[in-house]
């Protein structure tokens, strides 16, 4: 059964725009805009792998997966 994902939330007040989550998301869900701000652009592609959440050095990402 495919994992159903509710939401990927980025704490923008904490994010330092290091680009790690954008570079290593295997599904290219996250995109940085011109200023480097990370946006959740393609949420429907998210597999819930938690790569972004676990690699963020600032603990700024939460991936909420529906049970």
């Amino acid at each position, binding site marked *: 059964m495919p994992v159903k994902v509710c939401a990927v939330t980025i704490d923008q007040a904490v994010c*330092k725009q*290091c*680009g*790690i989550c954008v*570079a290593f998301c295997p599904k290219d869900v996250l995109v940085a805009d011109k200023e480097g701000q990370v946006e959740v652009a393609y949420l429907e592609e998210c597999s819930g792998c938690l790569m972004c*959440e676990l690699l963020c*050095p*600032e603990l700024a990402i939460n991936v909420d997966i529906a049970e």
Partner: protein
Amino acid sequence: MAKVAIKKTSEIRAEYYRPNSFPTIWCPGCGIGNVVASMVRAIDTVGLKHDDTVVVTGIGCSGIIYNYLNFDAYHGIHGRAIPVAVGLKLANPRLNVIVPMGDGDSSAIGGNHLIHAARRNIDITAIVVNNSTYGNTGGQFSPLTPTGSITTTSPFGNIENSFDLCELAKGAGATYVARGATYYSRQMIDLIANGIRHKGFSLIEVISQCPVQYGRRNKLPTAVDLLKWQKENTVSVTRAKTMSPEELKGKFIIGELVNIEAPDQEYTARYERLIEKARSGGKS
């Protein structure tokens, strides 16, 4: 290896970090944040109680780790995190003593302390954030900086050989030795958790990224570049067994390297027996 149950980051932040910890003082993309997060997740996985856990740090960018955590902590002096940790453990063997340090702190200034704590096999968990440089003081080379690297003290390339810290700890008598990398976060959590569970001296070296002081000077200017470098330059213990010494040159072997179960040989256990013996007039 047991699969790590991943707790929500928001819960981890609320339970283990002090309020207003984020954003941290570390540069964007700095791997210290990754190591601390994995350390905290490992503590959570093992289920250590806040009251029974102490974090001891040294100096440098990693020295500030204590500042963010909800544990009793001791910010030691340069290179002396291990002596403080050993003192705490001997005074109260019930404590879980966790010692995150930088590569310079642990292998140069505190190198002597590290090998003797390993030799004594005292039950503390040493975590070395190895980002190949002294970040805090301006990017000098440390004993773990790879040969050839450009640093502020080796502008034409480092001519020194680096320590293999894991081999050093193993040779000195550490009973749990592992190497991880910040890119492999799940494995890092496992390795640290097993180090905490282990009764005896544990050393976990984590290959980490310092984009600002190290990467920038070595054609790896961003955290992303350094993490990609990790992917290309680390090999698992299993794969390493199939590779020749030439193929392994310049590669870092990651995984569990030593795990010797001998709880009665641990230092505080021995010390306990010594006290018993002294009390019974040296007879038992």
